[in-house]
């Protein structure tokens, strides 16, 4: 998801969390609800300052439960809406997320993940991978999940998140972490060019048309089952059309790293160092975590001797990598829950799978 060289937009220096706000505003989002929690407070603070200036509305909700339900209300009117939160706050939103999936409502949820479980800590973590990719609360519900690894992507994937949410009428999660949110680097705020689709389901008052309802309860014989199959069909289409990934220095690689977000960013440095030592290593970086780039991971693993799956948790995405390939014996997991691995640490892991003496 890098910007094309063709559009020469002036680069600006921003934190990841700011870039999320820039992306949301560029995509026309004028409604933000949220509740304070570290490490994402700069998002609500930025939105609180900006929204009133651009005809939008910022509201600090009384809780994350209220937040997600305010979003449900705004989304039901066909209006773009966003929140951000972390750890316990995202957990509190799960019921509402399930209602959004069931009622087919678009919304964008930014998870600047912190470490858990419980109150955990404010250190960066990728421990929310399962929660973000496997379920949206109860029932057969999924989120679309995008994982930025740069400030640039915090901007562009947020814009994309709004488009995907509208296209599929489903909530989309941006899964970041404390590092990516606080990291400052220059990025190009490319113009937003998508066309926002019509929303012939939105609740606006039944003026000159039949009344509409937005709901997730279906009581008639067979109705809820049919609804579930319909949602499944949608998720199947998402899996088919919305896979996003990056292949990094994969040419001639004998060793492969699979990593996302902050860890992938660190791994890029480690890969460059390893390459300069003559170790042929590359990376397959999932950008969409749901849908997971299963096919691309499978294919990349075919051509290499060993695979390193690196995550800031005790092993979550590694299960999806295992699911993608029969070659489980090639896979080694390196986890660092609740702290960012250094380029040296990942380099050491690369040397290990490459059989290089340290």
């Amino acid at each position, binding site marked *: 998801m890098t910007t094309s060289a063709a559009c020469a937009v002036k680069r600006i220096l921003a934190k990841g969390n700011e870039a999320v706000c820039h992306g949301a505003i560029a995509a026309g989002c004028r409604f933000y609800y949220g509740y304070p929690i570290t490490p994402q407070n700069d998002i609500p603070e930025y939105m609180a300052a900006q929204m009133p200036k651009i005809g939008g509305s910022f509201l600090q909700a009384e809780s994350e439960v209220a937040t997600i*339900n305010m979003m449900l209300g705004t989304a039901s009117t066909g209006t773009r809406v966003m929140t951000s939160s972390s750890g316990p706050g995202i957990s509190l939103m799960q019921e*509402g997320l399930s209602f959004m999936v069931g009622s087919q409502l678009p919304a964008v949820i930014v998870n600047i993940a912190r470490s858990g479980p419980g109150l955990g800590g404010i250190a960066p973590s990728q421990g929310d991978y399962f929660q973000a990719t496997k379920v949206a609360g109860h029932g057969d519900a999924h989120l679309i999940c995008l994982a930025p690894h740069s400030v640039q992507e915090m901007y562009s994937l947020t814009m994309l998140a709004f488009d995907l949410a509208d296209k599929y009428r489903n909530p989309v999660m941006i899964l970041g972490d404390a590092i990516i949110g606080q990291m400052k680097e220059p990025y190009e705020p490319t113009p937003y060019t998508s066309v926002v689709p019509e929303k012939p389901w939105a609740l606006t008052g039944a003026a000159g048309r039949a*009344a509409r*309802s937005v709901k997730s309860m279906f009581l008639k014989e067979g109705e809820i089952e049919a609804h579930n199959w319909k949602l499944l069909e949608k998720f199947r289409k998402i899996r088919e059309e919305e896979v996003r990934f990056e292949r990094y220095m994969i040419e001639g690689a004998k060793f492969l790293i699979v990593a996302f977000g902050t860890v992938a960013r660190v791994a890029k440095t480690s890969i460059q160092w390893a390459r300069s030592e003559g170790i042929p290593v590359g990376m397959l970086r999932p950008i969409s975590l749901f849908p997971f780039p299963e096919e691309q991971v499978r294919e990349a693993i075919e051509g290499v001797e060993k695979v390193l799956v690196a995550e800031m948790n005790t092993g979550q995405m590694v299960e999806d990598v295992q699911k993608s390939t029969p070659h489980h014996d090639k896979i080694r997991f390196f986890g660092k829950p609740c702290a960012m691995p250094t380029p040296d640490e990942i380099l050491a892991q690369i040397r290990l799978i490459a059989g290089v003496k340290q």
Partner: protein
Amino acid sequence: MKNAAGKDMFSKLVYERPKTLLDRRLHYCPGCHHGTIHKIIAETIDELGQRENTVGIAPVGCAVLLYDYMDLDILEAPHGRAPALATGIRRALPDRVVFTYQGDGDLASIGMSEIIHAANRGENITVVFVNNTTYGMTGGQMAPTTMLGQKTTTSPYGRDFRTEGYPIRMAELLAGLEGVAYSARVTVSSPAHIRKAKEAVRKGFEMQLKGMRMGLSIIEILSTCPTNWGMKPLDAQKRVLGEMADYFPLGVFKEKKQADFE
């Protein structure tokens, strides 16, 4: 109105279904007040000419099928969260009329936080609060409004204040918040009470119309649940006007005038 043979039963039109109310058979139990309350809301919306300008919110509870009965745009809420949904709608569409319809389990138990904060923010929404002292839909469990001594499926020995606390008076509680424009408690247990209830519902809706917008309005309606009370419909009506109205006094607890606001 026609009889089974399709003949007009009356020569004169004595009752017309409000446009906002769809011509459907309600699923409510005999003697239940939900139907009457639906009708009052529908009439009010018709009279105020707001049918095409209104978004309603259906609760989790016996009235969840509100969208099958009202010819309005309606959003279905997670249990108790209707005031947060209403906030989200009203902020996105500030010119629309937005109302929630909530039971006592919904509003006074699981949704207590959402109603208090929506009220405190003075959201311009109307809350129709149906207090039948029990959880109707899930089979008559104890609610925060269950009367002392009342037997329910989860207070089989009767509600005891020493372990379950006291029935909560929501209309009074909310009237104490600055953001509330109107708070009243009514019943629909007799034609005279229905008229009063209608007046209150109308006031409640008027509070959010252009030129008013003085904050949240709540109309608590003492209602029956003959099924879960184990009572005949007539006895249930009597209970509302007797024991219930004794503890939950009828009346208007707050009514902001335009002047208060200026």
